[in-house]
């Protein structure tokens, strides 16, 4: 099921090794676990939409099931972080890494849940006939979200603030596609009330990918904090207008 190999562990060039080797190993293990969780989350996001697109209930079921592994990793990371804070009393960059890992693990767990929800909806509408055109916008969203997620995980592994900030700024694009998918689905529902069931599911799918983008920007903020000791300054560019969009408005 997890054919893709976990994200390669990027050796972080920090200020040298700890005198206590087991401490060093525990910190490396935290990064490795985030890499593994991130790889699984990426996979889940992609597969959830593949299952929807291909009307394949078995793929959808497999995707729903694989979220359990992400949850398990999340619990492991939480336990390890609590134990390390108690036993090691981490300081400075170690402290920031440990706190950041805990936060990123939480974001990845939420991303896993949202992807699982997409897979569940894929299962629910697998019998329905949905026109290809409707899925084009959603495909665009999932590609953008996956790309953003991959970039932010690489930025985390490399402590690359510039790359994290690029992810942070680019979420606007995902918002823009979400706005157009939202309008498209509204139009489709207005055309024929029989589309409402399907389109409502697709609307939630779109919303899930938009949320995944938001969680990705949270990870980008955490990466910035981890590397620099401060989160990004200023407001993140946002472009989600769906909260104020009405049927009939243009």
């Amino acid at each position: 099921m997890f054919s893709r190999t976990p994200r390669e562990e990027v050796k972080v060039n920090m200020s040298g090794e700890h005198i206590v080797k087991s401490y060093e190993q525990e910190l490396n293990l935290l990064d490795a676990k985030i890499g593994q969780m991130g790889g699984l989350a990426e996979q889940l996001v992609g597969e959830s939409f593949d299952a929807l697109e291909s009307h394949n209930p078995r793929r959808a079921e497999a995707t729903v099931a694989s979220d359990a592994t992400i949850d398990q990793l999340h619990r492991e990371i939480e336990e390890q972080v609590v134990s390390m804070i108690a036993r090691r009393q981490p300081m400075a960059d170690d402290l920031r890494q440990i706190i950041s890992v805990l936060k990123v693990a939480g974001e990845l767990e939420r991303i896993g849940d949202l992807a699982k929800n997409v897979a569940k909806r894929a299962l629910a509408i697998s019998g329905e006939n949905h026109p290809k055109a409707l899925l084009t916008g959603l495909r665009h969203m999932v590609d953008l979200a996956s790309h953003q997620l991959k970039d932010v995980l690489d930025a985390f592994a490399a402590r690359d603030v510039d790359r994290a900030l690029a992810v942070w700024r680019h979420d606007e694009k995902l918002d823009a596609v979400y706005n157009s998918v939202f309008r498209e689905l509204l139009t489709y529902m207005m055309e024929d009330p029989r589309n409402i069931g399907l389109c409502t599911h697709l609307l939630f799918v779109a919303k899930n990918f938009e949320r995944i983008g938001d969680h990705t920007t949270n990870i980008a903020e955490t990466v910035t904090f981890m590397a620099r000791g401060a989160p990004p300054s200023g407001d993140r560019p946002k472009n989600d207008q769906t909260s104020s969009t009405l049927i009939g408005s243009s």
Partner: protein
Amino acid sequence: MDMRPLPIETMHSDPKVAAQPARTKVTARDVNVFYGEKHALKSVNVDIPEKSVTAFIGPSGCGKSTFLRCINRMNDTVASARVTGLIEIDGQNIYDPKLDPVQLRARVGMVFQKPNPFPKSIYENIAYGPRIHGLFRTKAELDHIVESSLRKAGLFEEVKDRINDSGTGLSGGQQQRLCIARTIAINPEVILMDEPCSALDPIATARVEELISELRQNFTIIIVTHSMQQAARVSQQTAFFHLGNLVEVGSTSTMFTNPTDKRTQDYITGRFG
């Protein structure tokens, strides 16, 4: 030579305290210490704010205790030691030849690593300083000084029924608090503490740390400690020394979450090789 002091930003959890800008109590400019040929402390510049706790951290032999001992001229007692540069308390040069070091040490008290009570009664341990400095007129006044000092040191309730017993009969933690009570009995302005908890168990350490945070309402405290956790717990400012240099000084919360200098980072995270 760069003579500018490293900036100190003070962080207080109490907003009332934070609202007042910290006044500088101790100023050091280009302070160097030589032990014979050895250059033990290299051009230290720092401003220490009053009524707060400043911690000196660093590996053994980094100069932190040497600098601490400059502040009450304890290095005068070391024959080979030579101190250059300027140290001021409230703007007064403490190395002024006209200044009496004994009077200075009444203003700058010191607590040592190992509790060192006099082999006298608890009462006499406290009464000794006020006696030699003539700080009272009547026996009642002396009694009051002894009691209030013991109270401030959080020791009064524990020893009030055996105030005439020997101070050396107390536990290690009680002895250390007795030494702190003895220090504050002469009402100093600055209290220097050289690893005051390293001979104490964790509970006794917690008592002394609690005492330190109470004392900073009234005194300027400078503490040398090998325990970074202790520095993080008790101090508002932390200064990191390495190989005789003052590498970095800043608010304790910044120093322990996001230090600027790589040497500080390596030391506090346990990466020093």
